[in-house]
């Protein structure tokens, strides 16, 4: 939608008020797809309706007064100013209404807290500014990956048309099977984040050093989108959550391919690549992983400048060290466990040859493997 059109819409909305604006905009909570979501929605509606009814009564009395008890009508003010009976009534009645609200609220809350009998455990870890998903496996064969914002910078900085799922799209979504009780173990690596998907009514804070539990059971296949909801630094607005709920068969197939990927990655670390291949791959890794802090031109920002950096122009080992182990106590994380060895080799090669850092150095995946082994 063009800017002008949107401004005029908004102005129309202001003028004629809700009716126009409401048209195609969501104005209420969604019941979502889960049974808990539906219960929460019912509670929300129940309490809102009670409030609206009380509100109509209270404001009704007030406006009656405003219209009929005005000085300009020449009324003589009454002087009453006390009544214990009335005071007791409007203390006791609201109290009883509250009890009526507390009963269903308690039962829904107990359900939200029932984490037992999960069939699948997923460890969710919040990082500045992405999520890591790890499928816990009884045999220790965990599958894990990072999920990053997929919206390109050009869309964010308005040089490109924004897509349908602007800011709510990721490179790799969380995949879960439908009709399966999935337990989420939620934690964080740096600051506090919060993992939220409105359509499945799950929100839980991710707290570094502690593990929170929550769960869901999604009955319908589909794509559900959400966001981080706890302020976690500069790019807090740019760490969406996307969940794909798929059939059991699809899930098993996906899991199989993930395991195969893992094996392929190990094999790939043994193969040498050309400078060009490394640069192309390195650029895409850089743009998705490092750009937020180090800048599109390597000019720095939250992180230090890469262009002309002493580390990027100096000893390769020291550069690998920063990439793999990070810099303790700063926003520079240890990427060793986040990137595959191929990606690490590519991004380090890229940093050493892009932004005018023409060192000509080529770092191979095997160099990364060797460096990690010390």
């Amino acid at each position, binding site marked *: 939608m063009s*800017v002008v059109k949107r401004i005029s819409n908004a102005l129309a*909305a*202001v003028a004629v008020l809700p009716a126009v*604006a409401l048209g195609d*905009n*969501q*104005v209420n*909570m969604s019941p979502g797809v889960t049974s808990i979501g539906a*219960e*929460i929605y019912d*509670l*929300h509606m129940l*309490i809102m309706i009670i409030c609206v009814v009380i*509100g109509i009564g*209270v*404001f009704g*009395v*007030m406006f009656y*007064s*405003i219209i009929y*008890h*005005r*000085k*300009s009508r020449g*009324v003589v*003010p*009454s*002087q009453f*100013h006390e009544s214990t009976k009335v*005071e007791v009534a*409007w203390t006791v009645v609201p*109290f009883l209404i509250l009890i009526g609200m507390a009963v269903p*609220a*308690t039962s829904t*809350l107990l359900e*939200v807290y029932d984490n037992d009998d999960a069939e699948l455990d997923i460890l969710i870890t919040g990082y*500045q500014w992405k999520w890591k998903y790890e499928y816990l496996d009884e045999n220790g064969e965990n599958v894990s990956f990072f999920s990053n914002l997929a919206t390109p910078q050009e*869309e*964010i900085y308005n040089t490109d048309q924004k897509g349908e799922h*602007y*800011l709510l799209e990721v490179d790799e979504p969380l995949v879960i099977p439908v009709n399966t009780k999935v337990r989420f173990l*939620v934690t964080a690596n*740096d*600051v*506090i984040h919060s993992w939220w998907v*409105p359509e499945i009514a799950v*929100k*839980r804070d991710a*707290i*570094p050093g502690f593990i929170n539990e929550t769960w869901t059971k999604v009955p319908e296949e589909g794509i559900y989108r959400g966001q981080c909801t*706890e302020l*976690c*630094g*500069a*790019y*807090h*607005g740019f760490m969406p959550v996307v969940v794909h709920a798929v059939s059991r068969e699809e899930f098993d197939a996906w899991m199989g391919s993930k395991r195969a990927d893992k094996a392929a990655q190990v094999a790939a670390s043994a193969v040498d690549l050309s400078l060009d291949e490394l640069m192309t791959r390195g650029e895409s890794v850089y743009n998705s992983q490092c750009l937020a802090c180090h800048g599109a031109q390597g000019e720095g*920002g939250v992180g230090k400048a890469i262009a002309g950096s002493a580390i990027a122009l100096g000893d390769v080992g020291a550069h690998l060290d920063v990439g793999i182990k990070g810099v303790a*106590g700063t*926003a520079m994380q240890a990427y060793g466990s986040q990137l595959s060895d191929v990606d690490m080799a590519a991004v380090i090669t890229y940093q050493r040859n892009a932004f005018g850092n023409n060192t000509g150095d080529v770092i191979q995946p095997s160099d990364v493997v060797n460096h990690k082994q010390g």
Partner: protein
Amino acid sequence: MGDHHHGPAKGITRWLFTTNHKDIGTMYLWFSFAMFILGGTFAMIIRAELFQPGMQLVEPGFFNQMTTLHGLVMVFGAIMPSFVGLANWLIPMMIGAPDMALPRMNNWSFWILPPGFLMLASTLFMEGGAPAFGWTFYAPLSTTYAAPSVTFFIFAIHVLGASSIMGSINIIATVMNMRAPGMTYMKMPLFVWTWLITAFLLVAVMPVLAGAVTMMLMDIHFGTSFFSAAGGGDPVLFQHIFWFFGHPEVYIIILPAFGVVSQIIPAFSRKPLFGYASMVYATASIAFLSFIVWAHHMYTVGMPVAGELFFMYATMLIAVPTGVKVFNWITTMWRGALSFETPMLFCIGFLVLFTIGGFTGLMLSIAPVDFQYHDTYFVVAHFHYVMVAGAVFSMTAAVYYWLPKWSGRMYNETMGKVHFWISFIGFNITFFPQHFVGLAGMPRRIPDYALQFADFNMMSSIGAFIYGASQILFLYNVLATIIAGKKVTDEKVWDGAEGLEWTVPTPAPYHTFEVPPKLDPAHAHG
């Protein structure tokens, strides 16, 4: 200012060295207005960035600095000092005292404020920028991960806290010791009552806030790990401490506003306040409850379910005394003889909008539903209904109501009414749609948003610009009144006004009640 023996000093020293409660009150009021404009400017930057999806004006990091400073400046710089200013002007005049009990400390508690805020604002120009961790400054974002300016932020909080504590001790001492003979507690005007209770809340919780920021300081500079699990601490501990301060804080903000409304509604209804005693008890119960509900801000941190239930039930209970207050105000209006001068309009605006904020508060108190509301724009809408339409509207009403008494000049009524209507409409255009986007899933504190939120955000921004602009009208009206307003000399500026402050000459002389007044027994609690 007739009495030449005790007139104010000349020039700047009048303000620097003054121990006069009226001068200090005036300085507090102007200072808080300046902070209101500063915090408002930050808000305009926020709303301008959010006018459309995409990043246009500022970078995400700077956006967070704006939301943080906006919250801090509005809460600690605009709302709190404005009510302290009102207390300074009015409490001695309402209880028939010549001044505050501790006038020198009074001077000090004001004069440390401007340097405190200067320090806070100066962080904007520091390396790494101003604090960017939200006005709730959750650790470890505000400790290990904060910009170096956080140390100045901590010091600034200490200064503001010290100022508040001194101000409250002064109010407590004044109310307890300086009441005119015959002014028993249950005859005090409600504004005095609500401030007395607020002052106790402040003395109880500001030291807790000081403790929280000191622990941050230790974590940052002295190697402790209060809020870091790696060293055996707990980030959630920070939230418990913060909200043990923070929830009473929201009542510190609203109780004096309740007091103001309880003075003004009877005046323009020409009828005594309904249920005076129950108002006092309701205020006291709210104050008590405010200490045992803090974790309703933390429903999603993963508390045990028993804790969750306790905090839910306790929070729901607050609705009872809050409801009593609203019912009492409306019953005060019932069968009165109402007129709608600007102060009354702002009070009616308060009544309607604060009640809406109370309803959303009740909705938020339901823990399982709060999982969907928490940290969305729905919460932003809630607290702006209670803080802007509650505290700021009542403060505006107070200025219009007492300005003629303070200055001896009448403001322009038409302009005042226009100010009300623009504020009221602008406020609702800004904040009502925020309920919708919050329910539809828009998180708070984000500089950019998904496309489905675009229409309401633009509407919200337009409303914000309208509300912001209307404050210029307010400033103009006040200045024009002080400089060239129509003179008023009646002691009782408003025919329905009751209370000792309306028995002194208009404008109120530099010193009032040097001899305690004789109370008219017929006029209990004016």
